[in-house]
Structures are given as structure tokens and as C-alpha cells.
């Protein structure tokens, strides 16, 4: 391999696709952006690096699709031959910049014979952009020669050889176990983010009956692919993995979750199934299973499949402590094993075993802080790790902590002092929505 290259001193790097493939018949702009996002994520998942997409010309990693001689000393040569390159960190203006030959037939999820897999090449080039040089190691993604598609971007696992080399440059990301060998390591548990974000809110005028997030009592709440979804009536709000509300305006469930009956007026509970990351929706005695945001064939089915009574469920969530699925109805709860697909013996039990949790929950969910959250009315309760007792200082208001509501409405439960008598000190987000500002957050 080349002598070790320079590396980035900073850990937060911005990126932007400045020019897109001109004639690509198969790759739209959104797909190109998504593939760049996932190719960068391959490296940020295992190192302390963080990538975020920006607009404008100041991005650290400017991505271009260009042809022939494009004035950087590395002219392309038409179809085949050289297909892409990237500049190492530290090389003045071009550091990190990545160029793809627009004379190539760039593809995504196509068999090898049909062109050049953009995701595979992008992972390689971004390896250069963060400082890795070519290597002769047969397994490595940093071999100079194109070796065909590398499979599903959502499941791609870097060869161990490349992990070690990039750890030598930047160290290991805290949450990564760097002792697991590739053969032993299961695929990263990091569930894939749902690819399509809801349509741009500004193109879909809010309907009259859209609920208000600060005064609502939610029907269902779930962590789906690392993001939080709050369902109310025919609508839902979405929060990114770092708890940023994607939009103040709710999105219609029907517009995003494809395949639910058109007359469905609300949801009872939702959870993401461990193992295959499919998403299960409950309403009354029926349930639907979604792969990503599209319902699978053969649904709805009856919840008796789980061994649950047909009265339906109030809440469903997967406890991170044992990866079991818990269903709640009134003041009973069941424990179900989604890996073996059967109800555990000795259930239902009384919800009082979960000390401090109210009965008749609206829903429950696990969150990436390894805690479990229980929702009822406008409040929520937090249970840490493997405890079965509510943490001190709860309940707290959902709106203030999750949905950027400044002051709860008059009819909301007043912000009580918690046990220590101190005034609630939750995160105070100033909500500009009322005075004409739009609060928005970047989600990629």
C-alpha cells in the first residue's frame, strides 16, 4: 500500500453532490444522494467521523459526475478504464473531493454485467477521501480494480482489513466493538434508515383536521429504524435518530405507509420487529407487517397469530434488555418471542410489575439510549436498561421533551415539581412556529 496518507483533523465533514449523472436512465438524483449517504455511512459507522449533507459550495467533500479532462490532473478516459477518483485529506482545495466518470453506466442493485455499481465505487472513493490509499489485499474494498457490486447498501459490512486500516487513522467509534472478527460479527445491528422521507411538506398543504402535536394524546409511538414516530389519527410526526423533529406539520399515514385500508382512522400500536426489522401495525383485532414502508402480501391478519386476545392491544415494544416483544392491554401485559414466533409461558401478567407505569397505555417504545419509554395522555415515563421501575422525575410532558412544544396548552397537566421539589428543568425549545418562523431540521 502507499505510505499512510494525511487524515482529517476535524471529525465533522460536510458533503454535497454538486453535479449528477447527466444521462443516467436508472439513477435519479434522490437515489444518487441516498447512495452517497450510505457509502459515507459505511465509514462513519465505525470511526469517530460524522458526515452531513449541505447545500452551497463550501462542502468538504464535493461530489461531481464529470467526463474526460476536467482540469484536476486525472482525466477520465471514456467508458471503462478509469472510473472514479478522490483526493486525499490535506490536499488544499481539492481535499476530499470525489469525481465519478459520467461516461460510465452507473447502476444500483443491478447484476454485474449491467454497468458500474455506484455504491461499491463510492465506498472505495470515500476511503480515499478520508485518507486510505490503495492496497493489494484481496478482500479489501480499497483494491484499485473494480470488483463488481457489493450487495445491499443497507447491509454492507466493510472487510476487516479496511476497518483495521481506518481505525489506525482515526480510532474506533465508541459504539463499535472492534474485537469482533468479520466471521463472528453479525451484521451491524444498526437497522437501515427508511429510504424515502415523507414528501416535502411544502408541496402537501396541511389538511384542516391535522392534529396539533402539542395538545395531542397519541395513539401510537414507535422507534422505527432508529427514528421516532408519533401517530395521531390519520397522521404522524417523525423524529430523526438524534431526536430532531423532521417537520412541525404531521404527514398523512396513508401517504407514507402504503397498503393500510383507506378508511383507517387511527392506529393502536406499532413496533419494529427484531431480527428482520419489519414493522408491525395494530388496529383492533388486526395487524399488518411492513417491509420498509410497504405492507406485505397477505395482511391484515388476526392478532390471535401472536396468541393475543382479540380485544386488541394498547401498546407494543421490544425491550432492549432481552430483545423480547411486550404487548400491553388495560392492566395486563404479555411477553412474546419474535425470534421463535411464540408467546412465552406464564402470561399475561399484571402491569403493576412495571412499577410506576400507568394502565391503559397509549404506547411504548425502546430508544437508542437503551431505555424504554411509556406514553399515556400528554405524558411519558422512562425506564432505564433492565429495570422494571420508572426513573425518578417522571412522568414528563411529551410535547416539551420530544416535539418542540414551548408551553403546553392551558388544559395540559401543569408542569408539576418533581420529587425534589425543583421546577421541571426539561429541555426548553423555543417554538418559533407561531410567530412566522419555520423550525426545520436536516435529516441527512
Amino acid at each position, binding site marked *: 500500500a*502507499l505510505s499512510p496518507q494525511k487524515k482529517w483533523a476535524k471529525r465533522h465533514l460536510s458533503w454535497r453532490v454538486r453535479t449528477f449523472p447527466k444521462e443516467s436512465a436508472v439513477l435519479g438524483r434522490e437515489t444518487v444522494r441516498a447512495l452517497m449517504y450510505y457509502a459515507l455511512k459505511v465509514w462513519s459507522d465505525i470511526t469517530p467521523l460524522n458526515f452531513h449533507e449541505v447545500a452551497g459550495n463550501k462542502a468538504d467533500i464535493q461530489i461531481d459526475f464529470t467526463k474526460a479532462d476536467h482540469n484536476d490532473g486525472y482525466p477520465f478516459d471514456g467508458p471503462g*478504464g*478509469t472510473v472514479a477518483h478522490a483526493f486525499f485529506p490535506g490536499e488544499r482545495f481539492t481535499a476530499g473531493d470525489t469525481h465519478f466518470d459520467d461516461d460510465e453506466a452507473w447502476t444500483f442493485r443491478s447484476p454485474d454485467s449491467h454497468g458500474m455499481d455506484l455504491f461499491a465505487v463510492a465506498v*472505495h472513493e470515500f476511503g480515499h477521501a478520508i485518507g486510505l490509499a*490503495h492496497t493489494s489485499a484481496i478482500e479489501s474494498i480499497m483494491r484499485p480494480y473494480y470488483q463488481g457490486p457489493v450487495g445491499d447498501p443497507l447491509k454492507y459490512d466493510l472487510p476487516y482489513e479496511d476497518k483495521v486500516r481506518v481505525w489506525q487513522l482515526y480510532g474506533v467509534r465508541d459504539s463499535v466493538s472492534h474485537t469482533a472478527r468479520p466471521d463472528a460479527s453479525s451484521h451491524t445491528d444498526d437497522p437501515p434508515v427508511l429510504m424515502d422521507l415523507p414528501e416535502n411538506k411544502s408541496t402537501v398543504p396541511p389538511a384542516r383536521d391535522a392534529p396539533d402535536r402539542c395538545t395531542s394524546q397519541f395513539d401510537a409511538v414507535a422507534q422505527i429504524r432508529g427514528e421516532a414516530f408519533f401517530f395521531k389519527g390519520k397522521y404522524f410526526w417523525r423524529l430523526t435518530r438524534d431526536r430532531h423533529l423532521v417537520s412541525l406539520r404531521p404527514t398523512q399515514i396513508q401517504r407514507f405507509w402504503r397498503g393500510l385500508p383507506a378508511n383507517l382512522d387511527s392506529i393502536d400500536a406499532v413496533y419494529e420487529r427484531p431480527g428482520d426489522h419489519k414493522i408491525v401495525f395494530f388496529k383492533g383485532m388486526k395487524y399488518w407487517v411492513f417491509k420498509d414502508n410497504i405492507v406485505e402480501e397477505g395482511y391484515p391478519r388476526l392478532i390471535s397469530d401472536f396468541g393475543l386476545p382479540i380485544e386488541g392491544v394498547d401498546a407494543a415494544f421490544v425491550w432492549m434488555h432481552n430483545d423480547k416483544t411486550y404487548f400491553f392491554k388495560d392492566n395486563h401485559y404479555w411477553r412474546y418471542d419474535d425470534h421463535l414466533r411464540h408467546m412465552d409461558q406464564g402470561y399475561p401478567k399484571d402491569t403493576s410489575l412495571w412499577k410506576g407505569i400507568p394502565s391503559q397505555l397509549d404506547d411504548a417504545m425502546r430508544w437508542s439510549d437503551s431505555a424504554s419509554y411509556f406514553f399515556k395522555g400528554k405524558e411519558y415515563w422512562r425506564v432505564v436498561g433492565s429495570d422494571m421501575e420508572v426513573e425518578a422525575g417522571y412522568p414528563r410532558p411529551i410535547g416539551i421533551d420530544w416535539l418542540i412544544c414551548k408551553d403546553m396548552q392551558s388544559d395540559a397537566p401543569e408542569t408539576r415539581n418533581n420529587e425534589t421539589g425543583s421546577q421541571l428543568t426539561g429541555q426548553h425549545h423555543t417554538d418559533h412556529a407561531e410567530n412566522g418562523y419555520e423550525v426545520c431540521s436536516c435529516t441527512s
Partner: protein
Amino acid sequence: APSLTTEQMDMGVDWLSKFGYLPPADPVTGQLQTKEALTKAIKAMQRFGGLEETGVFDQATLGLMKTPRCSLPDMSETETTSSRRRR
């Protein structure tokens, strides 16, 4: 190996220079690559590409040279010139 055409030889030498295996021909003296340097460069490329190190432009080597690849060199300038300095 079947005898190479001049064109194949030129393509091979250009390729080796482009990807860092051969220092570019000396622009002043126009000094061509020595046979020994060329053999050494071909062997380095074959080693990097996982091929048998024959030191000549055999079919497998010419085939790999035609494989789509990244534009960046496999050897840094320093490595190529240092090996020349060492010589």
C-alpha cells in the same frame, strides 16, 4: 509469451507510469525506461494485482490493465523515485 505489438508495449508502459509503477520518462533527456526498471515495475504491478510475477506483459497482466479501476496511483511518487534512488 506471444511477442507484443509496439502498441501493446506503449500502452503497458503508459499504464505503469500512470499508476505509479514507473517514474515518467525523464522529460529532459527523454531517457527511456531501462529494461531492468520495466521488468521491476511489471513485477510490482503483478504483485499488487495478485498475479504471478513474470516480469513481462503476459495475457493476465494485459487483461488486468484493461479492468475498470480507480484513477489514483497504486504507488506514491516517493516510493517509485525512492526505489530508483536506491538503485
